[in-house]
């Protein structure tokens, strides 16, 4: 009979293991499962219980999780690339060639890094759209939306600084064009560009600066803000999806994060990882000839995610195309959740049944008006020539901007009069502008050929 004996002291191995992992890794009860989440450094960014409905794939599409996975891929492949790359104009391009031909799996690792970076831009924009269209930014989640926009800027910054590193023609001229945009910031533009480039033009100092930003400053900031963002999601919880006719205050069923959420995340991550690796095996990241500062290629295009911006620049005075319009758009985006303090449509796609119609119509109007604008500006409308007595900042800046704002105002008012709520009208404006921006991006990528002339896609030199 051992019943009365004190419990045997656990062995050394067991004690050592417990000093590392206090909770059992295969929890038996819900209570243990929740405790495991709370007491784990990484898992504790998750809540210990989640609403069962938020687990539906076609609500979140796993986009936030995909972004976290991509960030991890970028760190792992990026660190590997650092061992093979020399950040100096004399040897950067050579080290790229060596990476692709001599280093085992060098090409694959570079492809993974390149495609994951591009996918990150796509995924972060889709994530933003998902949160917007399901009203996921409403109180108390306003600030997490702002954090998301900061993350978007960081991802674009990481892409832009990384774009220069291969030091080929594509890199050199895309960064030259991109950094010239910054020069149009009123007053401080020149100083900021010189600081960023480490001189008047893209050169050795630029490569050093961009390398430091790309491998240290941006990733560290990104991971810090990302943790903050995830932690806020835990604190504020996810909006619960519901049909347009469901009331918002029904009690929600909750399940434990382990295994319901964690297992889904793991499976999704593995599937996505497999797809990304398959893609990277088939498609090589582009590498053109070595950078030649004496010769700009024709056409010299910025990176694809800047093509919408570059298209704006063809139609507006640079101060407007590069600074004022994107600045206003970004400010508007950050301010969105603060405009509607008590939004009752959280969790409903496009706010309501009516909202779905409005969004659809806005997409059509956005695409058509953007295409029409580009076409008109190409063949008919030459504002500086029509208004020769005005400086181009006004004739090609304030005048078209005022026209666009009037158009938007009329659209907003019109919808309001026709019976849309303020919330739906704002959704309409956002959707229209976004559709127009996507149209600009598509035109910039596929319809701009030599000398940035408007051509058909099959004659654009890739």
């Amino acid at each position: 009979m051992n019943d009365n004996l004190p419990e045997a002291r656990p062995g050394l191995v067991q004690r050592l293991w417990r000093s590392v992992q206090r909770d059992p890794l295969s929890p038996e009860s819900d209570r243990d499962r929740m405790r495991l989440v709370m007491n784990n450094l990484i898992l504790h960014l998750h809540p210990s219980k989640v609403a069962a409905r938020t687990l539906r794939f076609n609500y979140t599409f796993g986009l936030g999780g995909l972004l976290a996975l991509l960030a991890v891929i970028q760190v792992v492949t990026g660190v590997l690339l650092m061992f093979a790359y020399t950040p100096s104009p004399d040897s950067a391009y050579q080290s790229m060639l060596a990476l692709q031909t001599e280093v085992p799996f060098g090409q694959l690792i570079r492809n993974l890094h390149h495609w994951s970076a591009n996918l990150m831009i796509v995924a972060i924009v889709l994530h933003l759209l998902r949160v917007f269209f399901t009203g996921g930014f409403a109180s108390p989640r306003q600030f997490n939306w702002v954090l998301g926009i900061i993350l978007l800027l960081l991802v674009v910054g990481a892409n832009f600084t990384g774009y220069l590193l291969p030091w080929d023609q594509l890199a050199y001229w895309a960064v030259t064009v991109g950094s010239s945009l910054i020069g149009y910031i009123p007053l401080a533009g020149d100083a900021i560009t010189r600081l960023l480039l480490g001189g008047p033009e893209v050169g050795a100092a630029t490569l050093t600066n961009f390398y430091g930003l790309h491998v240290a400053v941006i990733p560290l900031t990104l991971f810090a803000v990302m943790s903050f963002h995830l932690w806020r999601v835990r604190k504020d919880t996810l909006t619960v999806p519901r049909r347009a006719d469901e009331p918002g205050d029904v009690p929600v069923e909750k399940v434990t994060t382990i295994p319901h959420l964690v297992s889904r995340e793991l499976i999704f991550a593995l599937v996505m990882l497999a797809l990304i690796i398959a893609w990277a095996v088939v498609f090589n990241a582009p590498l053109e000839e070595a950078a030649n500062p004496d010769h700009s290629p024709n056409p010299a295009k910025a990176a694809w995610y800047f093509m919408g911006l570059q298209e704006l620049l063809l139609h507006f005075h640079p101060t407007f195309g590069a600074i004022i319009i994107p600045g206003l758009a970004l400010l508007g985006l950050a301010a969105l959740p603060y405009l509607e303090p008590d939004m009752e449509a959280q969790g409903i796609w496009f706010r309501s049944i009516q909202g779905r119609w409005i969004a659809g119509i806005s997409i059509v109007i956005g695409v058509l008006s953007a295409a029409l604008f580009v076409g008109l500006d190409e063949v008919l409308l030459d504002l500086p020539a029509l208004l020769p007595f005005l400086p181009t900042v006004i004739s090609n800046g304030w005048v078209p901007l005022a026209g666009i704002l009037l158009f938007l105002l009329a659209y907003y008012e019109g919808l309001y009069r026709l019976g849309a709520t303020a919330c739906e009208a704002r959704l309409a404006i956002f959707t229209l502008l976004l559709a127009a921006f996507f149209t600009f991006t598509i035109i910039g990528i596929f319809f701009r050929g030599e000398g940035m002339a408007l051509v058909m896609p099959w004659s654009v030199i890739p």
Partner: protein
Amino acid sequence: MTEQSVSRRDVLKLGWGLASAAILGEGLLIGLRFLAPRVGEGEFGSVITAGPTDSFIAGSVTPFNEGRFYLVRLEDGGFLALYRRCTHLGCSVPYDATRGEFVCPCHGSAFSIEGRVLNAPAPRPLDMFPVTVQDGQVFVDTGNPVERDVHEAQSVVYA
């Protein structure tokens, strides 16, 4: 004691607060200074000797790749050093000898031989570098690009 008294604790708090702000500010300034331009000697950014005046015939455009400029000799014998960087978005503007114009490949801006804008989107003429002629030699100071809103005749340098 006045009515509005400041406690020792408040003064200390303020002191520590200011010290923290100061150290943060210093760190930020040092960080920014680290990124600042570093110009090497004899590179682009220094005074470049272009050559004897006679070697440039009237109506010619001579590229200087290391100095990033074109030395233009106008029909009347005047000199201009034009920065080859497009004033729109910074592309290298090549000289098109058949048209007698500088045409930017990136966004189609065109400039006359004096750098005047013939075709938008460039917002201003090509920037110039100061030219000096001494003992029959042409010198170009690539450290100080001069921005201008219109081309003016007095900016042309004569031997």
